[in-house]
C-alpha cells in the first residue's frame, strides 16, 4: 500500500527552507541566471506559504548525482534546489540553464510544488523559451496552445520567469507519472 501524501501545512518554515537552498550556483558566476515567479491561487492571489523544489541537468546535460545540496560549497553542482515563496508569493532560484539530457531532447527543470491548503504535492516542468527542441517534445506537442504556454518560461532581464497557477484561468498543467506496467 502506497503511503498517501498530506499537506505541508503552515509550519514548514522552520524545517525545510535553509540558507543556500535556492542557490544552485553562486549569483556571481558568469553563466548564472535567475529562475523566478509567483505562485497564485484560484482567486489570482499570491500564495505566501508555498515551497518549490527543482531538479535539473547541468549546462552540458549531465544529470548530477552529487551530495552537498544542504551545505553548498559553491563549486559542486548538485542539480537540486528548494525555495519557499516570500510574502508576495515569489520563489527565486539562482542556477544555470539545463542542457538536453539526450541528443535532441528539450531541456527542462523538473518541479514539485507544495503549499498549505494543497493536500498532495504537484509535479510540473519548466521548459526554456524558444528552444528548438520544444517543437518535437512529446509533452509539449500533446497540449493545445494555452496549456502548452503554462509550461514554458519567459525570458526577462536576469533569466527566466515562470509563474505557477494552482487553479483557474491559465491553470498550470500538472503531471502524473504512472508506474510502468
Amino acid at each position, binding site marked *: 500500500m502506497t503511503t498517501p501524501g498530506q499537506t505541508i501545512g503552515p509550519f514548514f518554515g522552520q524545517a525545510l527552507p535553509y540558507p543556500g537552498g535556492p542557490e544552485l550556483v553562486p549569483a556571481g558566476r558568469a553563466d548564472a541566471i535567475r529562475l523566478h515567479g509567483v505562485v497564485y491561487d484560484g482567486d489570482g492571489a499570491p500564495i505566501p506559504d508555498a515551497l518549490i523544489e527543482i531538479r535539473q541537468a547541468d549546462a552540458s546535460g549531465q544529470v548530477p548525482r552529487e551530495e552537498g545540496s544542504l551545505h553548498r560549497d559553491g563549486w559542486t553542482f548538485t542539480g537540486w534546489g528548494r525555495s519557499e515563496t516570500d*510574502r508576495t508569493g515569489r520563489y527565486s532560484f539562482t542556477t544555470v540553464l539545463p542542457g538536453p539530457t539526450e541528443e535532441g531532447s528539450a531541456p527542462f527543470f523538473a518541479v514539485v510544488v507544495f503549499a498549505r*491548503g494543497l493536500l498532495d504535492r504537484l509535479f510540473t516542468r519548466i521548459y526554456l523559451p524558444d528552444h528548438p527542441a520544444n517543437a518535437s517534445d512529446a509533452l509539449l506537442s500533446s497540449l493545445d496552445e494555452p496549456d502548452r504556454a503554462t509550461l514554458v518560461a519567459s525570458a526577462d532581464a536576469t533569466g527566466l520567469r515562470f509563474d505557477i497557477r*494552482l487553479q483557474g484561468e491559465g491553470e498550470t498543467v500538472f503531471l502524473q507519472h504512472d508506474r510502468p506496467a
Partner: protein
Amino acid sequence: MTVSTTPRTDAAEETAVPSSDATATTQEEISAEIAEIAAQAAQATPDGQPSGARQPRIDYPPYRSSILRHPTKDPRHVDPETIERVAPCFGHRDVHPLEADLTIGAHAGTNSAVSGEPIGERITVTGRIVDGDGRPVAGQLVEIWQANAAGRYVHKNEQHPAPLDPNFTGVGRCLTDANGDYRFRTIKPGPYPWGNHRNAWRPAHIHFSLFGNAFTQRLVTQMYFPGDPLFALDPIYQAITDQKARDALVATYDHDRTVPDFSMGYRWDIVLTGSGRIWTEPEK
C-alpha cells in the same frame, strides 16, 4: 484561571473562506461534510470496487484552505524523462548524525535552544522506506518537523497560546541506512487548535519529507499516533477517503523499540509511489 479561547488563524496570511467567517462553521457542519463525501466514496463503482481514494482528494472543501489551492484539471500522464528518473542525492556532508535526535537541545541550523531536555514523552520513531517495487530507499534524506508536547510549533505564524519549550525546536533530519531504515528520537507532539472552523483540533502528528530513488517519488506527508480520538473530526486526515490508506499514515506502538526506563517506541514504514527499477540508469 482564565484561558483564552480565541481561535487562531491557520497562518497570518490566511485568505478568507468564501461567504463566511471560518470560525462560524461548527465541527458538526464539518463532520457532516466529511460524512457526505465518505458516503459517496464508499459507493461501489460499476466494476464493483469502492471508489475511495488512496491519495488525498486535493479538492476537499471540508479543509477550507484547499478550496482555492487545488487544480481543477486532471494531471497529464507523462513518462518520466531522464532528469525525473534520478532523485537528488544527499550524504554525510548534508546531515550530521545528531540531527536525528530532537531531544538534545541545541540543534544545527537553529539558535533558539539551549542545552537542556525538552518536556514531554520521549519516543523513538523508526521504520523502513521502500519504493513502489519494494526496493529500499538507501542513503536518502528524511526531514521531520512537529509541535512540542504542548501542541506548539516554533514558527512566526503560530498563535496557539501554549508554552514554547526552550529546549525543543521540533526539527530533525537523518539519512536512511543501507536497508532503507530511518530512526529519530523525539518527544510525542501534542494536538493543537487551528483556524479551519470553530473548535478545530489537529490530531497529534509528525510531518515527514521524503525522497525516493527517483525524483517522481517525492513525498511530503504526516505520521499519526494510534487511537487518536481526533481522527474522525480532522478534514486533513479524512481527505483520504479509503480507510486502509488512512491507516497507512498511523504508526504502530512497538514494545520491542521501547527502551527500558527511557522512551516509548513507534514503528512507521513508508512506501513511496512509482517504480525506480526500469527508470534508473545504470550506476556508474
